[in-house]
């Protein structure tokens, strides 16, 4: 990270905030990378001859005579198949014991895929978790976050889903995850025997928060390299996007921008969309599927971060604890996979869509019965049946610990229906009832 010989060194800083510094400089490009006393920084504003830099590791200890050197180009990343199996920090520097990579450098801000050159995502991505495969079926090329409260084991589940899903390549972007979770990912990856198909970019909660801002670009550029140039099926994991957005808010605040909802920058939607829209199914065969984590504050999904996320992603998976059994499940009510329509009943068995909806609707009846019970009302026979059904539904299908195939899920679903209901109560097309109702 040394300046080229012809690059001038600036030593007069005009202004400093916690996240930025401003100086007089000429010939500077917007988005250009720079170093302030060796710390990585990026140009975020040009105003006449005055240039504002965002210093990723913070400006603590930076003096007004700090040395500023410009790199002459926007942030770049070395791309090579040798990235596989390695761990890097937010600047793309190896944090494992491996050797330094020798490879071609590329700009990290990729271009937009022309929408007419995208392929309709239509390949079923099985995870063995019924809360996903049955109720919220994933498709390669999809982007979807887990919405989870801090007490949920979201990173464990993310790792589990990633390792179970069929992919050629996994790219993990850790943003502000705890060191413990980082070690958990490493351990799970190594145990799985698949660690040489995984590339990780890690910023833990010990690292400066603004460094997180670099992670998604590194991850997406790497993903695009493997998916577009190598035609691989790439799975991207991003955790935790809430902490990424918090870092965006810090910069925007130090830039004196007027905050919009929840103190988030007005551009939050576009900032998040730029990352999530990297999910794609290329016509040439490669694909990028993004599974992210957006942690919630006490289940509040109206907060600007989950709210904007929900408008961008193709659905969301809510993790919650089932109140009766204590099992972790994927909430069938609030969760959604928008792309499931491309595969359910087409790539999976024909009865899948209607069966799935019927199960969820009847589970809703159980929820109503439960609230009736809590309010001290007598339950009628139907209520009691639906409560029994709900227990079995959670136990036999929704529990995230289960690992079952798609046909088995459907068969279990029909079994649950016939154990607790009559055919006319389930609102499914007669044709399917005739074929699949257990005799």
């Amino acid at each position, binding site marked *: 990270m040394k300046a080229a010989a012809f690059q001038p060194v600036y030593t007069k800083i005009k202004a400093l905030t916690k996240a930025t510094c401003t100086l007089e400089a000429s010939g500077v490009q917007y988005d250009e990378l720079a170093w302030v006393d060796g710390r990585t920084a990026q140009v975020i504003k040009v105003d006449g001859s005055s240039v504002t830099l965002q210093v990723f590791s913070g400006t603590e200890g930076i003096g007004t005579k700090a040395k500023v050197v410009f790199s002459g180009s926007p942030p770049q990343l070395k791309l090579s198949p040798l990235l596989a199996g390695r761990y890097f920090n937010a600047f793309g520097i190896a944090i494992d014991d491996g050797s330094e990579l020798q490879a071609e450098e590329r700009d990290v801000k990729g271009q937009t895929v022309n929408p007419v050159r995208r392929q309709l995502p239509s390949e079923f991505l099985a995870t063995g978790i019924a809360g996903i495969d049955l109720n919220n079926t994933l498709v390669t090329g999809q982007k979807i976050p887990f919405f989870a409260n801090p007490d949920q084991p979201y990173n464990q589940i993310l790792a589990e889903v990633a390792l179970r899903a069929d992919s050629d390549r996994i790219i993990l972007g850790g943003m502000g995850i705890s060191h413990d979770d980082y070690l958990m990912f490493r351990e799970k990856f190594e145990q799985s025997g698949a660690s040489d198909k995984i590339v990780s970019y890690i910023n833990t909660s010990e690292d400066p928060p603004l460094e997180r801002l670099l992670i998604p670009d590194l991850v997406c550029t790497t993903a695009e390299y493997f998916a577009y140039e190598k035609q691989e099926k790439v799975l991207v994991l991003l955790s935790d996007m809430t902490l990424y957005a918090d870092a965006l808010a810090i910069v925007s605040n130090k830039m004196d921008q007027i905050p919009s*909802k929840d103190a988030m920058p007005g551009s939050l939607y576009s900032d998040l969309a730029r990352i999530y829209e990297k999910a794609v199914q290329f016509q040439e065969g490669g694909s990028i599927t993004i599974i992210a984590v957006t942690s919630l504050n006490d289940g509040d999904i109206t907060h*600007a971060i989950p709210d904007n996320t929900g408008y961008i992603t193709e659905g969301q998976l809510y993790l919650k604890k089932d109140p009766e059994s204590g099992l972790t499940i994927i909430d069938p009510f609030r969760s959604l996979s928008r792309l499931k329509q491309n595969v359910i009943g087409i790539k999976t068995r024909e009865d899948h869509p209607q069966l799935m909806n019927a199960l969820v609707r009847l589970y809703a009846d159980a929820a109503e019965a439960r609230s009736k019970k809590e309010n001290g009302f007598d339950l009628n026979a139907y209520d009691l049946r639906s409560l029994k059904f709900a227990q079995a539904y959670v136990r036999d299908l929704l529990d995230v610990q289960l690992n079952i195939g798609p046909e088995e899920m459907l068969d279990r679903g029909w079994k649950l229906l016939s154990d607790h209901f009559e055919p006319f109560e389930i609102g499914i097309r007669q044709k399917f009832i005739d074929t699949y109702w257990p005799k």
Partner: protein
Amino acid sequence: MTKGKIIGILSNLIQIKVLDSVKQNEICFVEKGSQRLMAEVIKINGAIAFAQLFEAGTGLQAGDEVSFTGELLEVSLGPGLLSKNFDGLQNDLEAMPGSFIKTGQRSPALDLSQSHKFSPLANVGNTLMAGSIIGEVPEKALKHKIMLPFKFKGAYKLLEVAHAGVYKLDDCIAKVEGEDGRVHEITMVQKWPVKWPIKVYKEKSRPSDIFQTGLRVIDTLNPITEGGTAYIPGAFGTGKTVLQQAIAKNNRADVVILVACGERANEVVEIFHSFPELEDLATGGKLKDKTTIVCNTSNMPVAAREASVYVGMTMAEYYRCMGYKVLLLADSTSRWAQALREMSNRMEELPGTDAFPVELPAVIANFYGRAGITKMADNRRGSVTFLGTVSPAGGNFKEPVTESTSKVARCFYALSQKRADAKRYPAIDPLGSYSRYLDYEEFQQFSEKHIEKDWIKKVNKAKTLLSKGIEARDQISILGDDSVPLDYHLDFWKSELIDFAFIQQDSFDAIDMNSSLERQSFQLNRVLEVCDRSYEFEDFSAVSQHYKKLINLFKQMNYSDFNSEDFKKFNQQIEDEFKAEQIPAS
């Protein structure tokens, strides 16, 4: 042309020191090596112009040259727009090579070297005004009218017009002489600045006819009219996009313009994928042939989001001038408003509510105002029906975009989170939503004549039953099943019947997704008739048993072709259900 130099860069806002005169909203280009990056002037202060870049600002430097065009943001209007896929600035996406869109890449909306079969309709010596028809060109199923360009002011005399034959788009097909004696050459293509409404019509009239969407909860309960406006607000996951796509598929318009504004790319891909296969209900041709897509997805330049809705509206107005029934769909107008907010924020303007620019309500009102039915000088009638979705932050309708839209759009389709959670789709709240057109005398006359007698009375009756059902449900949940009179259960289950049998509709089922007006009227009458019968029930669980069986039969009917054997069979089973279960108490 005026030149300038960049002196400031903040994301996609650039400040330019200009050397000569410059216009508000003028288009300029930053010359960056071989790249030319397009930008629009949005503020001028002394010799400094502020411009929004339709690209990312990466790599730009202070001192980079800027050249101004003297033009506002304009679109090309001419034969060949239908079935095209444009970006937010009317670049033809299909014509761009490669999988990725390169910075500064452009491709013209219409290929001027393309030939079309022109037939003259006006005669030499005729007096023409802007919008007068000179000739026509077949375009897919339509006759694309070639009109005197809208920018022409006053009367013109037709001096020459080309004979019927094949001409290139930029060939001269007519010569006209203005009142000042100047002669102008006319081609089949004209340009128009997108932010100006095309007002070459003689009058705008009040809407009267229904605009069919094939959705029962809209057409019957809260109809939108031809030339009408509607908005659909809803939190994410409540089915806005599915709903809009269902309308895009089921309508009977001549031309559909879909604007994907700052939304997901995969949703547009789905349209690219499905529309060429789907049949257009109006003509029996392919749906793709009457559809033009303007697509500026969320990862495409933010500034072009605003442009995209105007580009869509301008093309819609253009086909309306020809005398066609145009449907314009925009998903989502909130993304456009957010783009305005981002820019206003970068310009350090004093913010209005939720940091949106203070002119937001006026901007939205003007835009919705461009829809409507118009009559041209020769009495040809065309319409733009506009449906916009709104994505309220946090699903809360008390926010500036939803509120501003509510003041101008005549139909309101509220998507309810509760209905979506219960998988009751479409999640349009039947009572919370409204159509102001139901109160229009013009629409009342239309429905009496073209749907059936006393139609609106029946619609209101269904709504009354629904609201009684909600009251009953509340009472039951407060007092408990046993502590309320049986009538409450009856009321509740009648409303459930209307909900399940009529309001809910499966957009993914080939039959149920689209219901003709005839079928809707049959269904409404049938449901109301069933609700009217009164019976003695033993207890409340007998009530629910009875209605659940009915609901099941109605659902099976909805999944069957109208008046097919299956349909009649299930209809008969409804009768049998009455005979088997209960004895009429009369």
